C-alpha cells in the first residue's frame, strides 16, 4: 500500500514536506480572527521613519520581539517607503497597530498609532535600555525561546483617574494584544508580561517587559532540580536517600518571603513541576527593553489630523489667535468623541 502522498505526482518540488499539523498552526498564527473569542487579532508593524543610529535599531528589533507573534519580525523597509505604503499594506494583512520609531533632533520618539484612521500617541523616549544590556546586568539571564510564541499580557497601572488622553491610551494598550479569555486560556501560554506604569510625579510611563516563571512553593531546591534535570544526582557521600533530601533543606532563599504574596494555586498542570491544585509562586524576570516615555502629542488621525493632547494655547494668548484657538478647541472636542467611539470596538 503506497502512501497517497508519496506518489510521484504529488511532488512539486516544494522542498521539505511540512506536516499538516504545523501548517495548521502556522495558519492559525496568521489568522485574523481569534478562534475562540471571535475578535479580530490585532497585529502590528514596528518600523522607523528617518535614519536611526545603531542603538535605536537594536531597540526597534527588541520592540518587535515584544510584539511577537503578531508582528513582522523581519520587516524590511526602504527609504522610499512612505507612511502611505505601510497603510496600504496593512489593510490586506490585517495589521491594526503601528509602532513608529524616529529620531528627530536627536531625541528618540516612539509613536503608537492605529491603522487606518486611528489616533496617534507620540512619546518621547527619555531613557531606554536594550534587551542585551539587561541580560548583561543579570546574573542568570533567562530567555527561553518558546516564550515568544504567545502574546504578552498587558498590565497597566497608575492610569486611573487621569484625564482624557490617558484613557484613550489605556484603551489603545489594551487592544494592542489579543484578548485573553480566562475560561479557556492555558496558563502555559501566558509567559510574558508587558507592564506600563504611569508615574504621576514625573509624568512618565515606565515600559517593562518580563518573563513569567512559575515555581512550586514548598519544594526544596534539590528536589526541584531533580525533577527538572531528570538526572540522577550524585549520592556518593550519602548513606541514605533521606540524607540527600533533608540535608540543608531547611533554609529557603530570602526571596521566598516575597513569594507568599505571589502564590497562586494552579487549575491545571502547567508543567512537570507545577501541577494542578498545588501552590506555585509567580516569579518575574526582566527581559526585553526598558523604556521611560513621556507623552508629547496626541493626534486624531494617523500622524495627521488635529492635535489633541498638548492643549492649544489658551484664549488670552495673542489677540489675533484668540478666535482661532476657540474654534480649534471646539473642533477638537468633537473629533475626540468621534475617535473614542471608533476605539470602543
Amino acid at each position, binding site marked *: 500500500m503506497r502512501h497517497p502522498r508519496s506518489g510521484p505526482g504529488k511532488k512539486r518540488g516544494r522542498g521539505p514536506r511540512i506536516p499538516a499539523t504545523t501548517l495548521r498552526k502556522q495558519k492559525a498564527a496568521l489568522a*485574523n*480572527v*481569534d*478562534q475562540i*473569542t*471571535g*475578535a*479580530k487579532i490585532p497585529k502590528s508593524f514596528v518600523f522607523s521613519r528617518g535614519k536611526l*543610529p545603531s*542603538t*535605536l535599531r537594536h531597540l526597534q528589533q527588541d520592540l518587535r520581539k515584544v510584539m511577537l507573534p503578531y508582528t513582522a519580525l523581519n520587516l524590511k523597509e526602504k527609504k522610499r517607503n512612505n507612511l502611505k505604503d505601510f497603510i496600504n499594506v496593512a*489593510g*490586506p494583512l*490585517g495589521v491594526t497597530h503601528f509602532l513608529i520609531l524616529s529620531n528627530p533632533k*536627536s*531625541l528618540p520618539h516612539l509613536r503608537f498609532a492605529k491603522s487606518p484612521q486611528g489616533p496617534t500617541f507620540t512619546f518621547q*523616549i*527619555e531613557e*531606554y*535600555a*536594550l534587551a542585551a*544590556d*539587561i541580560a548583561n*546586568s*543579570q546574573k542568570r539571564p533567562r530567555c527561553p525561546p518558546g516564550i515568544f510564541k504567545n502574546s504578552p*499580557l*498587558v*498590565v*497597566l*497601572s*497608575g492610569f*486611573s483617574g487621569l484625564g482624557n488622553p490617558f484613557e484613550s491610551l*489605556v484603551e489603545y494598550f*489594551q487592544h494592542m494584544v489579543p*484578548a*485573553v*479569555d*480566562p*475560561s479557556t486560556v492555558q*496558563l502555559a501560554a*501566558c509567559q510574558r*508580561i508587558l*507592564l506600563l*506604569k504611569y508615574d504621576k510625579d514625573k509624568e512618565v510611563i515606565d515600559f*517593562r517587559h518580563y518573563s513569567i516563571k512559575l515555581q512550586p512553593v514548598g519544594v526544596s531546591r534539590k528536589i526541584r532540580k531533580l525533577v527538572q534535570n531528570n538526572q540522577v544526582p550524585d549520592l556518593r557521600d550519602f548513606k541514605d536517600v533521606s540524607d540527600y533530601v533533608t540535608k540543608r533543606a531547611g533554609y529557603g532563599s530570602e526571596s521566598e518571603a*516575597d513569594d507568599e*504574596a*505571589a502564590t*497562586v*494555586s*494552579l*487549575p*491545571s498542570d502547567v508543567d512537570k513541576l507545577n501541577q494542578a491544585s498545588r501552590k506555585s509562586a509567580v*516569579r*518575574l524576570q*526582566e527581559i526585553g527593553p*526598558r523604556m521611560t516615555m513621556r507623552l508629547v502629542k496626541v493626534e486624531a488621525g494617523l500622524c495627521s489630523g488635529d492635535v489633541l493632547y498638548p492643549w492649544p494655547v489658551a484664549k488670552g494668548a495673542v489677540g489675533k489667535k484668540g478666535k482661532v484657538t476657540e474654534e480649534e478647541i471646539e473642533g477638537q472636542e468633537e473629533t475626540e468623541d468621534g475617535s473614542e*467611539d*471608533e476605539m470602543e*470596538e
Partner: protein
Amino acid sequence: MAAAPQAVSAPPSAATPNPSKRKTRPKGKGSKNKAKKKKLARSEQDDSVRRQRNKPSAKFLKLLRKRARDYNSDDDEEEEEQEHPPSPRRRRRDDDGEDDDDEALSHSDQEEDEEEEGVSTSAVTRFEQGCRAFRVAFLKIMNKKLPDDPLGPILSAHKKLVAAKLAEEAEERKPKGEARKEKRVAAEKGHVIPKDHLDSKEKELIKVATKGVVRLFNAVSKAQKPRKDLNPSRTKDAKVLAKERKNTFLAELEMPSHQDKKSQAPSNFSKRTGKDEHEPAWAPLRDTYMLGSKLKDWDKMKDSAAEMQAEVPLGDSSDEE
C-alpha cells in the same frame, strides 16, 4: 703583487730608483716609457693635485692593458683583474672597497706598491685612497646617531615642508574627530545602561507586575476549576456554569478595580464578559461576531451611515481572506 714586479720592471727602465719620485708618480698622459721620463720631471706639487683626481686617462689605461698582456704570471690573477680595468670597472671596485677582502688586498698591494715606482702605483694609490676615503665616510655615517625625528632622515629644507604638512593634517583631523565624537554621543542619547539590576524602583515595578499576574491567574483558576463539578455537556449545567463563571469574574475583577485603583489589567476581560449575558459562549454564534458591538442592532440604527461604512470595509476585508 703583480703590480710590484711590473712596476719594478717598468720604472727601472725609465729611471734610477728614486722612491720619493716613484710614490708621487703622477697620472696623466704618456703611456710610453719615454713619456714617463717626462713625468718624472714634473714637480711634486702637481703630483699632489693630480693624485686627487680619480679618473685615469685613456692613454694610461692603454699602457696598463699592454703591460697586463705582456705580463705572464701564474700567481697574480687578481692583480691582472685589478690592472686590466676600464675606468668604470675601477670605479666600481672603489665602491666595493668596503669589502674587507678587497681592502686588505688593496692595502697590502698598495703598501708594496708604494715602495715601487710606476704609473700603476699612482693608480693603485688613488684607488687605495678612494677606498680609504669611502671607508671613513661610510663609517662616519653609520656611527652617526640620528636624531629621533618622527619625520625620518630627510633633507633639512624638505623637513620644514613636511613638518608643516603634517601639522596641517593634524589640525584638520581634530575638528573631524570632535565632530565624530559628538555624533556618537548624540546617537547614544537616552541610552542608559542599567548598572545594577534590581534596585528599589525596579523591585517596585516587579511587584506591581506580579500582583497583576497573580490576579489574573487566580481569576483563571476560579474560572476553570468549578467545571469539574458539573458536567458541561448537560445543557442545564452548562447554563449554571456560564452564570457562575461570569459572576465570579465580575466579582473577582471588577470589585477590586473599584477599591484598589492600582491595576486595570482585568478590565480587558470585564469588557468581554460585561456584554450581553444572553450571548452564547462560542464566538460565531454571537450576533455581534466580527461586527463590533455597535452594529448589534444594525436594523434598528438610523443615522449611523458613516460608522457603518467605516465598519463594513473592515469586515469585508477579513471575509475575503
